[in-house]
């Protein structure tokens, strides 16, 4: 009897240890566009190609840290159905979902005062959304357009962490953050946010790889409270 109790106790302790000592984190990168939707035109090329290149470079940079596993939501030539990326991310139980977007920065007065980087997380109402909570572990049906509330606080925190770090690299007022009804983040359970960068030409995305990878590193580690590697 005492032996049985000891075995049960040790099993519970082991389970608890596994839950607290998660050693690997999964980040999903969702480059904008697909085979059907090329996205915006940037310097005579399309957004979908540039975001995919950026995501691949970012993946390489992030995976230099062995504790991070990066998954891209699509491959070249693949067509994505609505909510397919969200479904993919939810099935894989990712720890962080990041959507990547580019647009063309021009000397047109319409755009020249825009921020260098904009960070968005999904929000429909800036006040009441935080009142309503959704529990992931409860067996209740949560509509796909409300599932973001499960990780709303984490998503908001992730955006603030990323902003703080990016402001050390870029000019302080050139980072814009807001919660808004951002469609590419719809249906994702994990903490999720989107990064939109204004590019002057088709190669300037390379300047953003290191700062973004560093900020993502900080984001997931601060969200899951592990030591930050330099």
């Amino acid at each position, binding site marked *: 009897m005492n032996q049985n109790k000891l075995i049960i106790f040790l099993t519970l302790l082991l389970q608890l240890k596994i839950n607290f000592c998660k050693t690997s984190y999964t980040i999903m990168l969702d480059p904008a566009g697909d085979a059907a939707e090329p996205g915006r035109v940037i310097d005579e090329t399309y957004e979908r190609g540039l975001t995919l290149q950026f995501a691949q470079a970012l993946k390489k940079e992030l995976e230099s840290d062995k504790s991070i596993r990066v998954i891209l939501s699509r491959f070249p030539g693949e067509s994505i159905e609505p909510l397919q990326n969200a479904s993919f991310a939810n099935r894989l139980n990712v720890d962080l979902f990041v959507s990547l977007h580019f*647009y063309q920065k021009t000397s047109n007065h319409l755009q020249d*005062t*825009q921020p260098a980087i904009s960070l968005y997380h999904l929000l429909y109402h800036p006040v009441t959304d935080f009142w309503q909570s959704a529990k992931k572990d409860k067996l209740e049906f949560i509509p796909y357009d409300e599932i973001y509330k499960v990780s709303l606080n984490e998503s908001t925190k992730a955006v603030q962490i990323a902003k703080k770090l990016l402001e050390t690299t870029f000019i302080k007022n050139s980072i814009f953050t807001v919660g*808004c*009804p*951002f469609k590419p983040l719809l249906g994702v359970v994990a903490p999720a946010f989107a990064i939109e960068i204004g590019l002057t030409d088709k190669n300037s995305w390379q300047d953003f790889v290191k700062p973004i990878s560093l900020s993502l590193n900080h984001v997931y580690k601060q969200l899951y409270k592990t030591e930050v590697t330099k």
Partner: protein
Amino acid sequence: MLNKSCYLYNFKIALLSLLFFLLGCFFYLLYHQKIVIIWTDKTDNPVLLTPAKRRSFTLYFFKDNIWKNEQKELIDSDDIRLTINYLTTAWLNQIEEERLTDKPVTIQAVLLNELDTLAFISFDRSPFAKHYSVFQKIMWIEGLLRTIKKNLPKITEVSLLAHHQPIIDMHIDFSHGFPTTGFC
């Protein structure tokens, strides 16, 4: 006797022909708008029947990295739908003057829910060009929401439509209404 009945018959034919001729002339003149019939009905032309007065409205827009506002004298009607129509039209004209948009849009219809708190504004097309950044779209929406909130505080939510359907956009989800408190 026979002559009399023939005469009567011919007279009826002639009378009928004259009548149809006059009817044809009347419709001809009506068709070519030489004659105009004005049908007055109490439900027609609510603009003329609803009391209206002019008052100052504040229009908000984001330009040069700051929020700016402009005062405009517009008609303030007891029918809130009309007021929203005039206000939104004035706001659209304002941002077009300020060259904050290169895709001018017009309003097709404005409707309210039964509590007069949710406004449905239907445009003739999506106000966003494909090359617009999400930042531009958010600031456009935010400007409209601030303008409505400042001038018509009773409206708490705004739903933006194109041809009476939710606007289809790559980045912003228009299937829900937006709170007039805005997002920024």
